[in-house]
């Protein structure tokens, strides 16, 4: 989660929100959240699990 937050604090083009899956079960179900952390970019589920910073950047920028 912190990597997403760090990106948002570092760039005005990035927004980052942690969403507590148990509290918003309908949204979690719509996005097929079965494992956490699940990373969703611009409303599209992308991957599950933590990755190192360089890989995180590579993956989010690949969607841009």
């Amino acid at each position, binding site marked *: 989660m912190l990597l997403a*937050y*760090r990106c948002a604090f570092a*760039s005005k083009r*990035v927004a980052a929100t*942690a*969403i507590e899956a148990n*509290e918003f079960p309908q949204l979690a179900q719509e996005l097929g959240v079965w494992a956490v952390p699940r990373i969703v970019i*611009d*409303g599209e589920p992308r991957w599950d699990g933590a990755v190192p910073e360089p890989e995180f950047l590579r993956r989010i920028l690949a969607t841009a």
Partner: protein
Amino acid sequence: MREWFAALERPVELLVAVGPEQTPPAGARDVDFGAEMVKVCEGLAELGDGVTWRVEDEPDGFPRFPAVSIRPDGRDAGVRYDGLPWGYELGSLVGAILEAGRAEPSLRSESLAELEMLDRDLVLDVFVTPT
């Protein structure tokens, strides 16, 4: 945690957004999530002068309640936590406060250079659970 908050390089505001909540998860029917969120943020603010909080009822830009916006110098940086940060997830909120309180980003210089090249907005949502 008091030491961490004392080391903040700029003030951090927690804007707590309360409003209509979704059906609570099984076993949590007696929990007022909005009230608990206020307690959490109030408690965190008591740990350091650099952390303040305020609450608003259904402010613009918040699709879910409760939520908290973590704001360096009171500025909306696009960083939120939606839902109550239970258990281990309190660490995410504390981590966000510490990041917001940094004068300089903590990402690697290579990462900052890559972010500089972004030419459109990105919305990152990270689903988490408290355990």
